[in-house]
C-alpha cells in the first residue's frame, strides 16, 4: 500500500472515529472534561491540571557538577523554576541558528524519547540552500512547536482538548482529543502532526516491542496500542514536560551536538534564556501573525 493510500485509509477511519466521539461529547461534555479537572476552554484552562506535578521539586544537581557551564546551569535553573508555583513559570526556548549543524539529532532524539510513530514529528530541522555557486550557503532551522502566547491552534478545537498552560506550554489532552485535526490546519508553523496508528516495523517479520512500550508524555504512561491514545490524536512538542517536572531539560536540548538549543524560565531574570532574549540577533518566526511564540531564534 502506498504512503498516500495508507493515509487516505487512516483518514477515513479517523474521521469516522472523530465523528462518533463528537456525538458522545455533545451528549456529555462535563464527563469528558472531568479527566482534566475543571476547565471549560482555553482561557480558563488550569495550568498543569493534566500533570501530576510533584509536590516537591526534584533534588538539585550535585554541587560538584560545574554549574557555570550552560548545559548544567540550565538544568539548575529548572530546579529553581520548579520551586515556584506553575503559573509563575514561563518556559521558553532559544535556538541559536548559528550553532545548529543541521544534523537532525534533536528530531530523532525527540522521536525516541516520545516514541513517535511514522508521520509524527515534533521537531523537524528544515534546510534551505541559498545563493549560486560558488557563493552558496545552507541554513538549518529546527522547528518545534512555538508554544505561542496567542496560539491559533487551541481556538479551533471543538472539544477544548488543547490549550496554553499557565507555564507557557501548549498542551494536548490525548484523552479528550477526538482526532478532528482542525488544529493541524490552524497552526501557522506546521507544528502539529497526526498519529495514524502506524508502526515503523509493521510490514517486517515483527512489530518490535520498543514501539509499543509506553511513552511518558505529560507525566503519564502511554503504552501504544490500537484504539488507545495517543493513536488517532494530534500530537506535538510539549517541551518534554515529563522531563521538566523531573528536573531534566527537554530531549532536544540535552542531545544537541552543537549545543544550539537553550531552555529555561523567562520569568526568571537570572536565567540564561532571559539573558539571550536581550540579544540583538533575536527573532521569532512569523512575528507578524501576533502569535508571540515562546520559541526564539538567534540568527
Amino acid at each position, binding site marked *: 500500500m502506498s504512503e498516500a493510500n495508507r493515509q487516505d485509509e487512516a483518514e477515513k477511519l479517523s474521521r469516522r472515529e472523530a465523528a462518533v466521539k463528537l456525538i458522545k461529547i455533545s451528549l456529555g461534555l462535563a464527563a469528558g472534561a472531568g479527566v482534566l479537572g475543571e476547565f471549560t476552554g482555553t482561557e480558563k484552562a488550569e495550568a498543569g491540571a493534566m500533570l501530576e506535578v510533584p509536590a516537591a521539586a526534584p533534588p538539585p544537581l550535585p554541587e560538584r557538577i560545574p554549574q557555570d557551564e550552560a548545559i548544567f546551569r540550565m538544568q539548575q535553573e529548572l530546579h529553581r523554576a520548579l520551586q515556584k508555583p506553575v503559573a509563575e513559570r514561563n518556559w521558553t526556548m532559544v535556538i541559536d541558528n548559528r550553532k545548529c549543524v543541521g544534523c537532525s539529532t534533536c528530531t530523532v532524539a525527540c522521536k525516541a524519547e516520545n516514541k513517535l510513530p511514522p508521520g509524527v514529528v515534533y521537531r523537524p530541522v528544515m534546510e534551505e540552500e541559498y545563493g549560486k555557486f560558488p557563493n552558496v550557503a545552507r541554513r538549518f532551522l529546527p522547528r518545534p512547536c512555538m508554544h505561542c502566547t496567542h496560539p491559533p491552534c487551541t481556538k479551533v478545537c471543538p472539544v477544548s482538548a488543547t490549550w496554553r498552560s499557565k507555564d507557557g506550554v501548549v498542551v494536548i489532552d490525548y484523552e479528550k482529543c477526538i482526532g478532528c485535526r482542525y488544529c493541524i490546519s490552524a497552526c501557522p508553523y506546521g507544528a502539529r502532526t497526526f498519529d495514524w496508528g502506524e508502526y515503523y516495523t509493521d510490514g517486517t517479520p515483527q512489530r518490535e516491542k520498543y514501539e509499543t512500550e*509506553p511513552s511518558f508524555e505529560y507525566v503519564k504512561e502511554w503504552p501504544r496500542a490500537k484504539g488507545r491514545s495517543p493513536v488517532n490524536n494530534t500530537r506535538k512538542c510539549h517541551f518534554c514536560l515529563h522531563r521538566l517536572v523531573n528536573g531534566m531539560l527537554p530531549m532536544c536540548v540535552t542531545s544537541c551536538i552543537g549545543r544550539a538549543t537553550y531552555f529555561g524560565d523567562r520569568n526568571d531574570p537570572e536565567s540564561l534564556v532571559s539573558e539571550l532574549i536581550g540579544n540583538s540577533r533575536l527573532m521569532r518566526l512569523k512575528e507578524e501573525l501576533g502569535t508571540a511564540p515562546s520559541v526564539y531564534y538567534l540568527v
Partner: protein
Amino acid sequence: MKEANPNYTRRDFLRLSTFVGGTGLLAAQAGVFGEIGTANAGVAQQAGNYALAKPENIIYTTCLQCTTACSIKAKIVNGVLAKIDGNPYSASNMVPNIPYDLPPVDVARVDGKICLKGQAGLQHVYDPYRLRKVLKRAGTRGSGKWRTIPFEQAVAEIINGGQLFKDIGENRQVPGLKDIVKLRHPQVAKAMAEDINKIRKKELTITEFQAKYKDHLDVLIDPEHPDLGPKNNQFLFQCGRIHNGRIEFSKRFVNGAIGSINWVEKTTLCGQTSNKAWVRSTMAYEEGKWKGGVKSPRPDWANTEFVLVVGSIVFEANYGPVQESEPITEGLINGRLKVAVADPRLTKVASKAWKWLPIKPGTDGTLGLAMIRWILEKDRYDRRYLQNANAAAAKADGETTWSDAGYLVKIVEGRPQKYLRADEVGLGTKEQFVVYWGGKFLAVDPNDTVQPVEGDLFVDTVYQEIQLKSALQLLREEAYRRTLDEYAEITGLKVEDIAAVAREFTSHGKKAAVEFYRGPIKHTNGWYNAQALIALNFLIGNPDWQGGLMKPGSDWDYTGEKKDGKPYPVGKMHPGKLTAFGVPITREGVKYEESTLFAGYPAKRPWYPFSGNVAQETWPSIAEGYPYPIQAVLLHSHSPMYSIPGGMHQLGTLLEPEKVPLLIACDIVIGETSMYADYIFPDVTYLERWGTGQKPHHIRVKTSTVRQPVIAPLTDTVEVAGEKLPLSLETLMIAIAEKLGLSGFGADGFAPGMPLKRPEDFYLKLVANIACGDKPGDVVPDAGGGELELFRQSRRHLSPAVFDEEKWRQALRPQDWRKVVYVLNRGGRFESTNRGYDGDHARYLLGGMNRFYLEEIATSRHPISGQYFSGYAVWQEIQDSMGKTIPVEGDFKLITHKEVFGTQSRTATNYWAQLSVQPENYVELNRSDARRLGVKDGDRVRIKSRSNPEGVHELGNGRQRYVEGTVKVMEGLRPGVVSVSTCYGHWAYGSNDVEVDGVIIRGDARRGTGIHVNPVFRLDDNLRGTPLSEPIGGSVSFYDTWVTLEKV
C-alpha cells in the same frame, strides 16, 4: 503484520523463528502490556517516577553506530532498551564531564549528548531481520535459500568438512578447519617464524630451512617458499568494525589458536592512509629504526583560531560530529574561530565557513603545495621552531617537538634517498644525522636532550662529494615547481583564495591547524596529499600547543600488555599459543623484494610493506591464489560486496567454491556479503556484548570506554562445554577451539585452572586492566555496597546466559571485583575534561620529531611499476599501478560523501534516522550540469564508467540491476562533480525476500531505496578486478572515477 503477502503468515513466522522477531522472548519479559484502566487513558505517573531517569534502569556502554565509539547511557524499561543518550561521565559526550567519582544514583537525571545515529541504535539491535539461528545454504551461493541447522551440527560440519552440500547436489569435498590447522606445535611455529625472518634477510637459504625442518615440511603451504607460512594461513578471518576487545579476542583465536597470519580488517576502505602518513611523519628514531608515531593528531578545536578543513565532513562524519561540533559552533559564534573548507561539495561545516574552496577532487595536496609556496615565499613560517633539530634545541625554545626540516638528505643518481648519517662523513655515529648550521656540518642525535643543535632550513650543497639537500629544501623545490597561477589551474581555485587562506593560516601563531581525514587521501595520490597537509601544520610549529595540533588524550591500557604490573596481560596468558607467520594473503607488512616470490617488476599483484588490513586485496588475491590459495574464510562485520569500490567484480570469486571452498559468515543479519556464504552464524550487536571501544580522536583527556551487554541477547542460547552462551562471534570461536582442541580457550585457556569458556572470562579481565590503572596507585575505588546493589538491579532483566554474578566474579581475582563494578557502573573510566592542558600545552604530548621527509618511503619501490616513491609531498596525477595517468574518461568526477545519519552498510535499519530523515539518497548535481544534461530534481539517471560501461550491478545467480538514482540539483557542488552518499541501495540486509526452511520471508522495501555506486568505481587496468588504490598507505580510491550520466 500486513496481510499483503499471501506466501507468508505470522504463524509461519513463529514456527520458523529464524529471526529474532516472533520469538515471544520480549513479550515474556515485558509483563506490562495488560489493559490499563479505561481503554483510552494514559496512566498517571507518580512524580519522580519517570522510568528513564531511574538509576536502576540505566547501564552505561559504548556506541558502535560509527567508529567514534561514543560512551552512551542505555535506559532499559521492562527489559526493553527504551532510550539511548550520551554518558555524562565521558568527556566525549558531555563537556565538561561530570566528576568520575559521583555515584551513579546522583546523576541519573543528567543526560549527555549523542547524535542521531546513536539515538537510533536501538533500531540496530531491535531489527526484525536479526538472525537467531545458524543458517546453512539450501541452494547455490547467493540463491537466497537457507535452512536452519543446530549450532553443534554447524560447528561440526565446518570443522570436519566433507560432502557438506550433497543434499543440494554438490558432490565436492569441502575442506574442514581440521584440514587447515596443520601446524599445531608452538615451538616449531616459533622457530620457523624466526627462520623465515632470516630467509628474508638472506641469512638462511631455503635449502637450509628445508633441511632443518625436514620432519615438518608437510605443514607448509609450499616448502619451496617457506616464507609463505603454514597451511594454517589458508584460513582467512576478514572483519570490519570489530573494535577493541574483540580485536584481541579474535586475534587470540585466529593468530594464536588457529595459527593463521590472516586476520585482516577493512581499514584501507577508511582513513588508513591518513593514519599511516601521520604515524610515519611523527615517528621517533630509536636504536637505528623509525618507531612509534601517532595516527591521529587533530586540531585543538576548543582553543584554535583558524582551521583549514580539507575534505573532512566534520559535522557529519569524521571522528566525530559529537565531539567536534560543540567547540566549533561555540568558537564560531563567540568570534574565536574562523574556518575555511576545501571540498568539492558544500558540506554542512562548509556552510558555516568563512571561505569555501570548491576544490577539484584529487588536488588537495596541490592546494597544500600552493600554500607551502606562498608561506615560504612570504616568510610566514615558524623559522625558530623549524630550525630546532633535536630535543634539547626544542626545549630551549619552549617547544615539545622539533622537525627534520634541516636534516640533510643524500641525493644519489639525482634522486633523494636516505638521510645522511654522521658516520658517513666522519662527524659521528651511524645513528646520528647531519645538519648544516653557522657554516658547519654538525652531527645531530634527534633525541639528545642536553646539547641543542639547530640546522639551516634551506641547504643545497655538496659535502665530501655527496650531494645533499635539506628536507625542507626538497619540499620547497617541489612547491616552487609551479606558480600560484598553475596551482589555481590544477585545483580549480582562485589564486586570491589560496593566498587568503594561506595568510589567515599564518596569522594566528600556533593557534591554527589543517584538519583532514578521508577526503584528500582516498585517491591514488592520497599519501602525498596527506604529507602536504601535514607539512602545513609543521610549518607553523603547532604540535602540542593549545589551539594547535594535539594527539588524542589516550586511554588506560586494557590489554594489560603495554604497561608493567598490569593484572591481566591477556595476550601473554595463552599457554600453547602458536606464532603466526608467513606472508599475509594481502602481502602487507612484508617487502616484495625480500620474499622468495620476488621476480622483478611488475609483481603479479601489489605488496604493501607500509600498510596493513588491505581489504580490497583479499578477494582478488584469493581469485588468483597469489601468494597462495585460501581454503576457508570467516567473514565478520565487514561487507566487501557492499563497501569495497568495485567490490562487485569479485563476486565471482565468492560464488566459486573452487576459489573459496568454505565461506562462513558471522553476522547479525543476512547482509550484502553474508548472503553469499555457505553458513551464517548469528552474532550479537554492540548493545548485547562486550568490548572496550576505542579512544576518541578529539578528546584531550584519558578515556577508556567499556562495551557491555545492556539487554539479553536476541540470539539463541546454546551450550558449549557445559556453559550456556548466546550465539555470537565469541561463542563460535570458543566452540571451534573446544572441538578442535586449540590453545588459549577452554578450561585452561589462560593458565592451568584459569578458564576461557565464556566471553566475560576474557572481557572482564580487560575491564580490570582499565580499573587497575597504568601505574601504582592509579586504581579506581572499590564499589561500595550501594553501588554493588545498583549494579545487580540494573542487570535484573539479563538472562543467566549473560549475567551470572558468580560467574563474572570467577573471571577475576577477588580484589578486582568491586573495582570492575565501579568501572562498569560508569561505562568505562574517564578523566575530567579540565585535565586536558598544562599551561599553553597539551597535557598528553605528541612530543618528538616531525618529519617532512620519509627516507624509508623514498628508498622503496612500487611493486607493480617498479618506480621509487617520493619521500616528501609531491603533486602526482591520478594514476594506476603502472604509473599511467588516468585520462579524462567521462563528463563528471564521481565523489561520495557520508550522511550524518549513515555509516556504510548498517544504518538502513534505522527507521527513525536514515529512513525518516532522508528516505533515499540522490545523484547530486550542480544546477549548470543538470541544465546541460536536461535533468531536474526527481529525474532518474544511470551512472556509467569505463570499468562499468553499462552501469550494471551484478548480484549473482543471473540477477542484476542498473546503477540508477534520483537526481537532486543543487548549487553547493562544484560543476563537473557528481556526488552520491554511501549508505543506501541495499539488496540484502532485510531489503529483499529470502527463503528459510521453505518459507519466504518478505523484505522491507524501505531498506532498499536509493542508489549504491560502488559497482561503477574505476578499476586498475593491471590488477584484474581491483579498484585503483593508493600504493603506500594502501587506501582504496573512492574519488577518482570519471562517469557519464544517462537519463532514464
